[in-house]
């Protein structure tokens, strides 16, 4: 299976662990991610707050650059996924915007036929296209005993309705059940991580982060699994500041779902980018996996 791949800016540096583990897992599952040549930033939420048409054109450049023989584009970042998918949909639904975006693209010698590329999030590809049977086959190190809290965030499950619920998504839950983990059914798994509010109103952003961490703690999770660099950054990098702000004492490791999938597939922690998280996942991993080794 072959997909066009749009890593997005975060994957280059901040979310290097996500990128590393994604590549490792992709190889192990036997699917090929062909990086879109010379892709540009998706504009995040900021560009759309300023100029919708220009933002759409900036996003559409990436769609236009997808190799003609490929018609599915995989994005690991929630914001990138949504911007790409939403722009494609907007162009399909709105003839005026479609025409203008294409006129803008033409200034760069490009064109894009709305609907040509199906934009998908990485989780969806792993969950749907590989499915339970094949993934179970590949598990060499069951995650039994580990209590994981899948965290979906917002923009992969909303507003574009896929096969999963927009309120109470289950795909990552199921994936980790296949891997043997104990999945924590906590209520805030599709609530907001604070997004870019960290830049706008810290008290507000910290409160949103606290709610997520608190709920995971209440449900006795060993770690939170992320599927978006922004969510990971907010929950991980700001965790110490949240503790400072509220006087709490969270030590909740925040890792990418691909990292833990890689663990289950038998890869070494290092190749999966462990150690890059600010709140280390190693104690939890060691405790649980060692426990099992002794059994």
């Amino acid at each position, binding site marked *: 299976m072959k997909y066009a791949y749009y890593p997005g800016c975060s994957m280059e540096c901040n979310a290097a662990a996500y990128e590393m583990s994604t590549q490792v897992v992709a190889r192990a599952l036997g699917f090929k991610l062909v990086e879109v040549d010379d892709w540009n930033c998706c504009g995040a939420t900021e560009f759309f707050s300023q100029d919708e048409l220009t933002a759409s054109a900036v996003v559409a450049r990436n769609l236009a650059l997808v190799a003609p023989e490929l018609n599915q584009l995989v994005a690991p970042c929630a914001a990138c996924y949504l911007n790409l998918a939403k722009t494609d949909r907007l162009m399909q639904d709105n003839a005026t915007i479609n025409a203008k975006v294409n006129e803008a693209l033409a*200034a760069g010698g490009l064109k894009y036929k709305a609907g040509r590329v199906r934009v998908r999030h990485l989780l969806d590809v792993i969950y749907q296209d590989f499915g339970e049977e094949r993934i179970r086959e590949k598990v060499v190190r069951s995650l039994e005993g580990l209590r994981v809290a899948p965290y979906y965030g917002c923009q992969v499950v909303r507003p574009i309705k896929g096969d999963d619920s927009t309120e109470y998504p289950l795909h990552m839950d199921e994936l980790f059940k296949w891997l043997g983990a104990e999945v924590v059914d906590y209520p805030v798994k599709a609530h907001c991580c604070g997004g870019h509010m960290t830049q706008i109103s810290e008290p507000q952003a910290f409160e949103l982060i606290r709610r997520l961490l608190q709920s995971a703690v209440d449900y006795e999770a060993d770690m939170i699994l992320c599927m978006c660099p922004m969510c990971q950054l907010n929950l991980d990098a700001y965790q110490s500041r949240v503790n400072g702000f509220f006087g709490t004492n969270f030590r909740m490791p925040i890792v990418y779902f691909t990292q833990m999938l890689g663990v289950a597939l038998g890869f070494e922690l290092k190749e999966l980018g462990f150690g890059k998280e600010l709140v280390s996942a190693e104690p939890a991993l060691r405790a649980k996996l060692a426990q099992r080794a002794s059994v």
Partner: protein
Amino acid sequence: MGAHSEGNHGSAFLREVIADTPGGERIVHCLQCGSCGGSCPSGADMQYTPRTIFAMINANQRDAVLSANTMWYCVSCYLCMTRCPQNIPITDVMYALKRLAIAEGKARGTDAPALAKTFTDILEKYGRSFELGLASRYYLLNRPMAMMKMGPMGLSMFTRGRMALLPTKIKNLDQLQAIIKKARELGEAS
């Protein structure tokens, strides 16, 4: 198409917002149920809840709406939008209001426009986002004091190889800039 959506009905501001939002014509169906304001993670901090904003739009309170903090507290989580019993694209309306507020210089008491501006400047210059550049430029220009608090976290990030010192530039920057230029022209023309 029909008399209700094409004619001169509804407040002038309502028509303006509808024209600026894809799917915006659903606004007229608002039941004032408040499931948006109830769902919003920032609901408690908003000056007006989205529902109130719709009532204000209907009442043509243009200035009050555009200088409200509501849209700047929108985190784009889309919970309100998927829960709205009338399928109003609430998050998209917030984007439209942000654009109008920036265009009219009404965005007061928030750094969000500045952040957005910094972000787009970097995008235009390099084609990719650049976190260190974004953070330092934005904080230096807008919030020098806050920069201090960010220090330790930035350092941790840096030591774990999660913060780049130099931006990545895309190869065909000319092409991107040409597209942006053309798009801006088209936007202004309409």
